[in-house]
């Protein structure tokens, strides 16, 4: 029996004037998992997050939490959904502690001890009585995480939670998100950091131009593409690059090698074509398609080749 999703969005749509920001996007968050939401700028991620958090009214579609359909007027915090989108913002003239107490009051379920506990959790216990106007971006991110955790939500939605954090802060936030998932909470993580998503998430949803281009497991995505990556060293790379095959991508790679993305049969065709032109393959190795490569294939962008990488003067 499949467990019901912690949060389910069905065909959410949002238009701003003539522009469709989100077009019939569906999303299911598995309980106790970290789900990545990816896409290039303008893909509709932020609008999607805002609709899930109740900040933006969808033109169509529904959001369900634990099977109950949420109207736009139902505060998400009351249904166990919390988080932040964009950089979390606070009252600069109040202290970190008072800011959290204020938000606690709006959740109606927190105590001063809880605020202290959360500030300690995100490493801001020593700055509890400092006014937020003096906080760095990283400190505001930490405070944002603490604010999201006030009501101990079952579903937490975070947008670029490690933006502005130093490496130790990034490590701590990753550990916190993993610990939350391990304790049964569900996390929706929106991030441009593909390494971060690959490290933390089991499932991802990739948006492009407001529509879903993939939703599912990362490993399933690798299996689904059927494409593989090879690294080739030939006797005449220039001539190899001239080969025109509709289903094979050949690009200059690092160290003077060629990087080839193709299915097994297309790659076999490529080798035969090279042999016909008397181009000898001197080195050949197969590589796992990186998540980054898969992402760029899904979003229609290409990876920068080694030849295109800017060189320092």
């Amino acid at each position, binding site marked *: 029996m499949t467990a019901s999703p912690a949060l389910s969005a069905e065909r959410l749509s949002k238009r701003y004037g003539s522009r469709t920001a989100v077009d019939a996007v569906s999303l299911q968050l598995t309980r106790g998992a970290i789900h990545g939401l990816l896409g290039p700028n303008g893909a509709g991620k932020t609008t999607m997050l805002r609709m899930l958090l109740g900040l933006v009214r969808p033109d169509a579609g529904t959001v369900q939490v634990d099977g109950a359909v949420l109207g736009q007027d139902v505060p998400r915090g009351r249904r166990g959904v919390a988080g932040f989108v964009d950089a979390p913002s606070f009252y600069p003239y109040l202290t970190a502690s008072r800011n959290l107490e204020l938000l606690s009051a709006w959740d109606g379920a927190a105590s001063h001890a809880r605020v202290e506990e959360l500030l300690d959790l995100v490493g801001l216990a020593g700055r509890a009585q400092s006014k937020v106007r003096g906080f760095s971006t990283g400190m505001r991110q930490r405070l944002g995480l603490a*604010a999201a955790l006030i009501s101990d939500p079952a579903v937490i939605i975070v947008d670029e939670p490690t933006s502005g954090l130093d490496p130790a802060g990034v490590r701590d936030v990753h550990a916190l998100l993993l610990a939350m998932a391990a304790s049964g909470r569900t996390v929706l993580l929106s991030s441009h950091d593909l390494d971060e998503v690959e490290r933390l998430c089991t499932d991802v949803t990739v948006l492009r131009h407001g529509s879903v281009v993939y939703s599912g497991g990362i490993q399933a995505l690798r299996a689904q593409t059927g494409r593989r990556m090879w690294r080739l060293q030939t006797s005449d790379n220039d001539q190899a690059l001239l080969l025109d095959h509709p289903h094979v991508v050949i690009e200059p790679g690092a160290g003077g090698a060629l990087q080839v993305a193709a299915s097994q049969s297309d790659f076999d065709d490529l080798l035969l074509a090279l042999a016909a032109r008397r181009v000898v393959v001197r080195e050949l190795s197969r590589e796992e398609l990186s998540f980054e490569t898969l992402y760029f294939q899904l979003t229609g962008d290409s990876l920068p080749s080694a030849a295109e990488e800017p060189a320092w003067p």
Partner: protein
Amino acid sequence: MALDLVSTPTRDPDSPRHPLVQTYQWELEKLSAQFRTRAAVVVALLGPLLFGVGLSVSSNVPADTLFGRWVGDSGYAIPLVVLGFAGSWGFPLLTCLVAGDIFSAEDHYGTWTSILTRSISRRGVFTGKVLAAATYAVVVLVLLTLSSLATGVLLVGHQSLIGLSGNVVSPGPAAGLVLASWAVALPGVLVSASLGVVLSVLSRNSLAGIVGPTVAGLVFQLLLLVPGLGPVRAVLPNASFIAWHGLWADPTFTGPVLTATLADLVYVAVFLGVAWWSFHRRDIAAS
């Protein structure tokens, strides 16, 4: 960063209050933490005193204002002169320092995304903010009333005052009529606050919320002077700032007070209704 997962939150046993009450109290705390609010309260407290001191050291009296010629003869004239000035621009400016900013400040700080993802509804947030703005407006009115009355009595004395029909109002009833006159202005003050709220919601800009009602107050003041408006004058948003005049006639007439109060209630309902409609439907699409 400690990595122990958080425990289940519990309601603070010392504050088992309704979220709306907590929202209201927090709005008041936020207001009291801002310099602008404190400055306005100081102006409401000290403004009449400075005005009275200025009159006492000056050889001239504001004879062209209602009761202005009596400011050196009765301590009860000063609060009425202050009320006249406050009605034209003081109330709109002082009340909208808060009301005109109370919603747009969240846009300025980008905090809507923090507030509207909590457990309280938009209705609760709206109600808490409107109640806080109204509370502040009433506090400003009360401070101005008490400060101007105390200034008049302390600097000039506890004398009888000549009414608008030439009638003599003895000190005790004069004190009561001064308080009643200021009370009549309350609905007009709430109209100014409501106008500030709706401009704050619609414009998302504090300057518009503060300056707009002040300019509108001056425009309405000019409209009161336009001849031929007839019954329209009685239902202008600032009619309650002059409706108290009838209390100082002999015999007194209270019809304008009732009319202005009813009109002001309609204005408040319309302004707050528009503000709620806009706030309720708003997409928080950008910080």
